């Protein structure tokens, strides 16, 4: 079951027929990315598996997880931004259980080069890892 945020993302991307327009939209979304604070742009927060650098951090506030990130490549920023929109503000357990097929539905995974697709998988994995850690912490 997709969340409302995921449904919105799917509908938004369906508005564009041409992939160049979808990329233009991704670039725009990159600008709305909740930026990670400069002090956290360290190796501890870097995601491996991307050709460009990606830093990702998660915080838990009142039982909900909020992500912030940054990248040195703009399209990558757009992709992280989409993921953060899909998962930010959910409970740790909901993030762990959340389906990721919206990525396929907007055609993103098919349309990315193999290196970029690997990066995307690495980002989702990292977000779920953060959520798993919070969930374990909450249950402890």
């Amino acid at each position: 079951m997709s969340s409302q945020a995921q449904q919105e993302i799917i509908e938004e991307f369906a508005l564009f027929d041409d992939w160049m327009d979808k990329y233009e939209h991704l670039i725009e979304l990159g600008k709305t990315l909740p930026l990670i604070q400069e002090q956290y742009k360290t190796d501890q927060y870097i995601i491996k598996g991307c050709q460009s650098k990606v830093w990702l951090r998660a915080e838990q506030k009142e039982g909900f997880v909020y992500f912030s990130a940054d990248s040195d490549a703009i399209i990558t920023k757009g992709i992280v931004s989409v993921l953060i929109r899909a998962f930010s503000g959910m409970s740790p357990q909901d993030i762990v259980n959340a389906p990721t097929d919206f990525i396929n539905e907007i055609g993103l995974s098919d349309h990315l080069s193999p290196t970029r697709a690997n990066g995307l998988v690495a980002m989702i994995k990292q977000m779920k890892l953060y959520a798993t850690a919070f969930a374990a912490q909450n249950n402890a």
Partner: protein
Amino acid sequence: MGFAVEKIRADFPILQRQVHNKPLIYFDNAATSQKPKAVIDALVHYYSFQNANIHRGVHALSQEATDAYEQARDQLQHFFNARHRQEIIFTAGTTHSINIVAHGYRSILKPGDEIIVGQAEHHSNIVPWQMACDLTGAVLKVLPIDNNGQLKLQALNELLGVKTKLIVVNHVSNALGTINPIEEIIEKAHSIGAKVLVDGAQASSHIKVDLQKLNVDYYTTSAHKMCGPTGVGMLYGKKALLEALPPYQGGGEMIKEVYFEGTTYAGLPHKFEAGTPNIAGGIGFGAAILYLNSIGLEEIAAYEHDLLVYATDELKQIQGLKIYGDVVEKTAVVSFNIEGIHPYDVGTLLDQMGIAVRTGQHCAQPVMDFYGIPGTVRASLAFYNTKEEIDILVKGVQRAVNMLL
């Protein structure tokens, strides 16, 4: 008479296809070249009519396959003008070729011996030597490049000494396309008794190489960069040097007699060709050489140089675009960045427009570190590319810049 590029393009089936509903523009030739029908046909013909194991069969097919494979060796010998056919070793590619020599040097190097390596080498021509040095106590010294990506020959005079055993350097930089003055390097090395290994992967389909005139000790290349199949390449070495070099892998083909008390090795070239080789690949390599010869390497070089000059001039019109290794002596490679834009973003958008380029470090991380950049966009051109395609590239880069800035 002009260069008949349209006729040549018709030889390459893949150039007819579309990518993302746009005609494919292939500017990733430094990664691998496309294959003409003559090469594809040679592979199909071999597997359809000649397939057999070679060198030891008693039957007709085996003899035919052996002849076809060994004929390819002759073609390589003539193409590169090696003195002896035994000096041509079939390998899996340049990386394999370098590893054969580097592995052999593990028994030759003594603690304190020195190997000089160029700063702009592909990782394949760095790591095997680091491994050899680690095991022997030999020392790897780096011959630096200047801001244009050219080797500082002045520095070579200071690095060369009685302990220098070997200089390893590429003929052409894969990251930048700059051509190295290997003639001078070889002469300097020989004057103090050191040997030279040249990584020719980026040169072989662009520059005519005369191994005897060059007087190089080891030269390596890959078929797939020269319109041939992947998984096959060449190691050239001077006969006396290859005879002195210990074998790399043990197995069939590379032996003379095997007893549990001890084994004697086959002579050249088989000593370095353990196991059933890539027979189809070797035959395809021969077909690629024939194809390149039918066009002429000098003609190819002249046409590609025209493309390079055109692409360089046109790309430079784009504001903020910087070319790395913008020198006269280079092959048709333009490695660039645009100020404030990550190369990966440019490559991704170009791909959407049907244009294939390479982005990233190009397996040459020290070069990127030298410039302090995460990577470059590399457009590497071949003789089947056209100025019209360059126009589309330039428009595409401009469009990407407009979107990204």
